């Protein structure tokens, strides 16, 4: 389902002027705090009314400033997972989940993949008796049980500590993989976005600065300043060749060669994404020998992007995948890097965090 958003809205001193299109799937809204991500999905939800513009989901017009169409939020069939669980304190977990479907029995099995949330045993409890992670899982189940046509998630992991986040991401991945409805996922954490999203919308100061397919945008050296030099990095599609190698590493197969990375929790043969930060990639013209780094992938320079600072972003092709390296301008000149040059990308195994591995392939 295609999605088209083009809205302007004044919110006190803040001016929102956002427009983007997406082909459905998971659209991530990424940017620093206060850049207007939540305002955009509140407008999609109908919790706020833009001053002008339009919001279309497929052939359904949710808002149109010119014709005055504004579908009230309770008629939009949306599922909204907020930053905090927002469970109804006077209702049991079961009643909370059933709230969106008052006249029907709900099922936690088979129904939109709710079983993966693992909350069957919590049904009789009240929200005050739940842990943060449990409450957020219940909130997700509640949003999905109302059988929404679109799912909105506003930093659903924000209320969890780091350890819980790592535990929780697989739930989200499994869930997102099972739903066929468009999902809007708001986050300021690129590791989450890289694992979940198909489409990436980068926002800053109330405006959309980049919008495009996730894999393309993350390997576009020109986008590096919008995404952030620390966060930028391409996604490799890998298959788990040997999840549990004897030395605590996993062996992952890429289209260009094998990678040795910290152990992943997955079966052999699973396809997943690995985000390689541009700042973690070292380039070498000759095949390095006697290096402590385990991962050396042959690649071709496709593009070099010079920014304002001392660094340059180098886009690389490695087999069928894209990689990106951020090196100093001086190194690029000394090495004589130009588009078409063959070289080797060196990736240090331990620099890839567990949170950067997971998710489906980007297709």
């Amino acid at each position, binding site marked *: 389902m295609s999605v088209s958003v083009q809205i302007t809205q004044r919110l006190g001193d803040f001016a929102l002027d956002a427009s983007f299109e997406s082909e459905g799937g998971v659209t991530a809204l990424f940017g620093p705090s206060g850049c207007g991500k939540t305002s955009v999905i509140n407008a999609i*939800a109908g*919790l706020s009314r833009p001053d002008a513009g339009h919001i279309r989901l497929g052939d359904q017009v949710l808002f149109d400033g010119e014709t005055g169409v504004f579908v009230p*939020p*309770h*008629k*939009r*069939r*949306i*599922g*909204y997972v*907020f930053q*905090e669980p*927002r469970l*109804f*304190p*006077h209702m049991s977990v079961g009643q909370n989940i059933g*709230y*969106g479907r008052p006249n029907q029995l709900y099922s936690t099995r088979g129904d939109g993949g709710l079983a993966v949330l693992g909350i069957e045993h919590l049904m009789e409890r*009240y*929200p*005050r008796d739940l842990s943060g992670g449990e409450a957020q899982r219940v909130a997700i189940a*509640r*949003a999905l049980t*109302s059988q929404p046509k679109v799912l*909105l998630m506003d930093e659903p992991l924000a209320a969890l500590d780091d350890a819980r986040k790592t535990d929780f991401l697989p739930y989200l991945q499994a869930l997102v993989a099972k739903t066929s409805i468009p999902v809007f996922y708001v986050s300021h954490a690129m590791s989450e976005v890289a694992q979940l999203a198909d489409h990436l919308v980068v926002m800053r100061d109330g405006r959309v600065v980049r919008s495009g397919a996730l894999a393309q945008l993350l390997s576009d050296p020109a986008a590096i300043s919008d995404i952030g030099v620390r966060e930028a990095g391409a996604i490799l599609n890998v298959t788990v060749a040997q999840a549990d190698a004897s030395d605590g590493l996993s062996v992952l197969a890429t289209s260009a060669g094998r990678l040795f990375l910290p152990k992943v929790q997955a079966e052999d043969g699973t396809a997943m994404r690995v985000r390689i930060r541009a700042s973690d990639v070292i380039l070498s013209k000759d095949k390095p020998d006697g290096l402590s780094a385990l991962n050396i992938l042959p690649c071709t320079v496709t593009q070099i992007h010079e920014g304002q600072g001392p660094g340059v972003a180098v886009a690389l092709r490695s087999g069928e995948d894209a990689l990106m390296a951020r090196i100093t301008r001086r190194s690029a000149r000394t090495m004589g890097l130009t588009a078409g040059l063959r070289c080797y990308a060196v990736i240090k195994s331990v620099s890839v965090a567990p949170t950067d591995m997971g998710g489906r392939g980007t297709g």
Partner: protein
Amino acid sequence: MLGLGPEEWGAVALSLRVSIVATLAILPLAIWVAHLLARREFVGKGVLNALVLLPLVLPPVVTGYLLLLTFGTQGAVGGFLSNLGIVFAFRWTGAALAAAIMAFPLMVRAIRLGFEASDPKLEQAATTLGASPWRVFRTITLPAALPSVIAGAVLGFAKAMGEFGATITFVAAIPGQTQTIPSAIYAFLQVPGGESQAGKLVLVSLVIALGAVAVSEWVARKVAGRRA
């Protein structure tokens, strides 16, 4: 029991009837106005707020006199209503009307605090789950404000039980018809030797007041017990 005569029992029964009817009849309006004042922005909000508070700041006798002017059989509203067979002046219904109007500002103030303290984020969540504004109010907003609604109702009931000035001005104090506990106590104190009868009614008032507080505490604890 307590050595109360039929006249005193009549006053007790009438007071209870007047106060319960007044409280229950005015409660939905108090909830609605409290919600309006707590959650909505509209032109004339200040005027509405002042109007609601008026019975609290006016001398009760003035309120009673205004009621007589408006709802008396010669009054604008009263004349119209008496054609429909609804009479307030010098009836127990008039006492209930006076009690309701005097109790209204206290109830609105207490309930409004509850709505102001309840979390609009939960209402948003309910809305996104497809609940209409009315369903959101019934299932989320009202339950969240329930302790305040109970407190407001008890406060209103207590005010209604004690109402004297507006009631006696509007409907006088006809034994068995409009003579509530306060006006009976006042009447007993006007005749020599009436102190013991007045004292008994004072005791009854005390029991009713304490009973109301105990019941409201019990209900509030039952409601709060299910929450975090």
